[in-house]
């Protein structure tokens, strides 16, 4: 038995360590300028979220009756003041933390729970799959905004309740994607080969299924972050989410509504922040998706 060696390829093959999956994805991601720009914006937002209180020029809670609704460019207040005289710039910066938090956390929780449900249903198949997915379908039969509001309305206002209701809203779509991908992977020959080697179900899921399923599900989940943020802020906008005096962009839109006739641009500022954040996350998710596609 002779091993054939291609002499021309020898040096290249000897030197190269083969790239893992995530390294390849990372490299492809970096080649997309728009996605990288979006990633930087997200990074800035995360920095603001974490270090907001220290970066803000003034105390976001300090109100002043004399200085209510001062315009943009007013001395001392770069972006003006809100209806209670608090500095807008500071409130916007500190508000990053809550606004991002109520948007991202439900998606993370839904990712974990939805993946467990979907992978279990997808791998088990049969009646387990049918019963689980039909239950999920019932929740999926509600339009997400309606479900979120109905749940929030039922549970009451407050951050915890809106986190719970948003998590519940996002579990069905994630579970569906997880189940679909898992079923596909389950039918591939390498899973059969793993079964043929005598491995048990948990081992097979851990070694063979998870690595192939979590990637696509994760990408799908990232595309939900922007929606979650808008919805979460929307809940606060309706009075069902964050309660005053916490700085949160959606809540700020609510309380500044009456100001649209007197200081329209200040009233619009918090929404602009939501818009920017949403664009950034959407472009980021898009970039991630194209970096991961065509891989197979």
């Amino acid at each position, binding site marked *: 038995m002779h091993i054939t060696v291609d002499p021309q390829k020898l040096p290249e093959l000897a030197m190269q360590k083969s790239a893992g999956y995530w390294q390849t994805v990372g490299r492809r991601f970096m080649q997309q300028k728009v996605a990288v720009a979006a990633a930087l914006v997200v990074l800035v937002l995360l920095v603001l979220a974490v270090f907001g209180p220290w970066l803000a020029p003034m105390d976001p809670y300090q109100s002043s009756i004399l200085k209510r609704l001062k315009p943009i460019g007013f001395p001392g207040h770069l972006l003006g003041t809100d209806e209670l005289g608090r500095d807008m710039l500071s409130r916007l910066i500190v508000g990053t933390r809550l606004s991002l938090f109520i948007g991202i956390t439900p998606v993370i929780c839904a990712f974990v729970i939805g993946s467990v449900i979907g992978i279990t249903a997808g791998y088990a198949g049969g009646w387990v799959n049918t019963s689980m997915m039909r239950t999920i379908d*019932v929740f999926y039969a509600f339009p997400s905004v*309606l479900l979120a509001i109905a749940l929030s309305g039922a549970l009451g206002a407050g951050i915890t309740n809106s986190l719970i209701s948003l998590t519940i809203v996002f579990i069905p779509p994630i579970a569906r994607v997880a189940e679909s991908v898992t079923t596909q992977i389950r039918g591939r020959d390498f899973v059969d080969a793993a079964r043929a080697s005598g491995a048990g179900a948990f081992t097979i899921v851990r070694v063979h299924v998870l690595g192939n399923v979590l990637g696509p599900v994760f990408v799908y989940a990232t595309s939900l972050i922007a929606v979650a943020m808008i919805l979460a802020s929307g809940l606060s906008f309706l009075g069902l989410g964050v309660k005053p005096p916490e700085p949160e962009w959606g809540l700020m839109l609510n309380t500044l509504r009456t100001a649209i006739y007197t200081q329209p641009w200040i009233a619009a500022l918090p*929404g602009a922040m939501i818009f920017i954040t949403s664009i950034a996350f959407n472009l980021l998710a898009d970039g991630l998706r194209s970096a991961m596609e065509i891989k197979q």
Partner: protein
Amino acid sequence: MLVFLWRRLLYTLPIMLGVALVCFALVHLAPGDPLVSILPPDASAELQAKLKELYGFNRSYPEQFVSWVWRALQGDLGTSIASNRPVFSEVMMAVGNTLRLAMVATLIGFLFGCLFGFVAGYFQNSWLDKLASLTSVLGVSVPHYWLGMVLVIVFSSILMWLPPGGAGPGGSGDWAWDWEHFKHMLLPAITMSVIPMGIISRTLRALVGDILAQEFIVGLRAKGLTDFGIFLHVVKNAAPTALAVMGLQLGYLLGGSILIETVFSWPGTGFLLNSAIFQRDLPLLQGTILVLAMFFVFLNLIVDVVQTLLDPRISRS
């Protein structure tokens, strides 16, 4: 194919039951006394008990559920605690208003979405594509309630071309398709159309790109088909999916109209939902959610059916 449709129809039934169940559970999971809004704080225990009995709150949950569903099937959704009018008529009036708005919005979104989507798909990677894609990303990312506010600021407050809210001079019950009423609808409809426009545009861009890349297009060109002929082919292939997405978007708008209706004080189901929540008007809340969810389920069913009828591949599977 008939078999498929029949099965699909049958499948809807357990879903509807499940939806009713979730609806019921949602509302009754709310903490707090449902009657607190109409009872005076010092009401006697006797009065409280009487009212409870009147509304059926003293019976067990399964009992309440069954009787609610039974009556709902007959068109009786109970009486609103706050307004004392039948829930059904309140909801239906509101649904009418929301449907009008949503349909106009979907139409606008569909038209522009198709435009952008086709342009982007046909001229992939050109500046036209980038522009169209940019517009759709913006459309999908915008917080629509904020956009509504901005439009009100620009067109109502600053330019004073359009009214800031309401459904027209006659209030919520009176609608006519004239300019007097339509100018109230314009801003909310445009606001509502933005997200569907973004989604339809993105979907179509990918779809048109895929279709054009397929080999049968090359074959058609080789046979001498004109560009317009090819365009018709693309439309035919893209139509089922495009219509499906449009139908779904209509459903989402119906269910999710609350935010925009709040901004524009549009007297639709969203507005109703809002007041039901804050007044803790359980029958109204239950009825509204149920009707909206059912609309959505039916819409999904119709979308599936239409897609099956239009797309021969699905029907033969």
